[in-house]
């Protein structure tokens, strides 16, 4: 299947076919999620209205984390099977993931100010998200750090791999270092500990924002592939003129 999808032209066709349905699904899910989340769900008995930030904050945090795992997988595919598309996907995903990590931090700050009385608290989960953002920035910087862009592909893929190995270690070390944050409430061994009225919009937003992430990644992949075709056309033209 990977061989099948590794052909850029075929990928573009499939991506084109998926693109608009994904846009529609993302819009519908996010629209419904925002409606339930902002207008049609109860405030939290402790956190009041600020709980509604959760509907953006939690999906963003999930995407930032899963996005890094996906980045690592792209790195693996690129290193082991040398799929050019894995490199394109990695380059497309890194800035999108960084954006969601940043969004997580900003929404966290908006939530933290009323709840904790401070924009920033050196709590374990915030700190690991900040470090995750740095990981993303490292991959972006390395992928673009070479005069010939394609030379950055292999280092960036390797760095994404190292980062994935390091993410659990960072998580563990930062937890050890300090923890103030409330424990995770969605995925916990004792089952879901959240009211149904809040769970529905949260799940809608989770699904919707993942689709949104996919939309951004496809869009960026198409842009990168188009840019590469342009460059190779220009090079070919330059070679033709040189005769």
């Amino acid at each position, binding site marked *: 299947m990977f061989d099948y999808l590794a052909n850029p032209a075929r990928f573009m066709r499939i991506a084109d076919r998926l693109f608009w349905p994904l846009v529609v699904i993302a819009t519908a899910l996010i629209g419904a999620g925002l409606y339930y989340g902002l207008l049609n769900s109860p405030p939290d008995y402790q956190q009041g209205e600020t709980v509604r930030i959760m509907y953006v904050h939690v999906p963003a945090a999930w995407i930032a984390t899963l996005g890094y795992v996906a980045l690592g997988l792209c790195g693996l595919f690129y290193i082991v099977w*040398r799929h050019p598309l894995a490199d394109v996907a990695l380059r497309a995903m890194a800035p999108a993931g960084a954006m969601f990590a940043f969004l997580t931090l900003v929404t966290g700050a908006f939530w933290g100010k009323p709840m904790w009385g401070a924009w920033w608290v050196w709590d374990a989960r915030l700190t690991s998200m900040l470090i995750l953002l740095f990981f993303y920035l490292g991959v972006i910087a390395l992928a673009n750090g070479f005069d010939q862009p394609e030379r950055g592909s292999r280092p960036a893929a390797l760095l994404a791999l190292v980062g994935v190995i390091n993410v659990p270690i960072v998580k563990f070390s930062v937890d050890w270092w300090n923890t103030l944050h409330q424990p995770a409430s969605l995925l916990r061994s004792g089952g879901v500990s959240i009211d149904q009225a809040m769970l529905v919009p949260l799940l809608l937003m989770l699904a919707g924002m993942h689709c949104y992430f996919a939309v951004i990644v496809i869009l960026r992949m198409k842009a990168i592939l188009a840019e590469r075709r342009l460059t190779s056309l220009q090079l070919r033209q330059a*070679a033709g003129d040189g005769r």
Partner: protein
Amino acid sequence: MSATQPDNANKSPAHDSLVRDAGAPPAGLRVDGVALVRGGRLVQNALSLAMVAGEVTLLRGPNGSGKSTLLRTIAGRLPAAAGTIECDVPVLYIGHADGLSPALTGRQNLADWAMLNGLANDDVAIDAALDRMQARAFADLPVRRLSHGQRRRVALARLTLGPSSALWLLDEPNSGLDAASSIALDDLISDHLKGGGMVLAATHLPLGITHSPRTLVLEDMA
């Protein structure tokens, strides 16, 4: 070496060592349908080449046609975008860079290289190698003090230390050499071919060797 197999930190088995058992089967180099990509651009497509013991092939072609890239790819330092490369003899590679650390002397560089490859590295062997390229006089100076041509001579002296069956991959070997050392290099190559070795060289300058070379012209793929 197959271009499709994962080629991580491990080197392809063909290039494992300069020291091989004697009595190996008829040795040679087979390049089959190789595509080369450089700077994100396809520079050669479906390139094929076969060589057996005692043969010399010269690579010619304009700048950017992939001569150096081909040599690096055969040396296992770059992946082939497509096709296969098989080589069942030891490979000695002298690229644009001489492979000499500027802070060490030519003699130290040569001895380290020989030891790394399990080759003769006593003073007699090193001196003999240096003498072949008339490089003994400046072999005890740090390489950073040497001129371009002098460094080249020390680097080329490495060739005589390797096994006689080796495939030499030479990238512009005679650039920067004076007339006397060019002749010394020609003799080196001729002797190597006589001894059953193989030479694949990219060069703009003529080589005055006794064997008649085959020439592979790499066209510019526009």
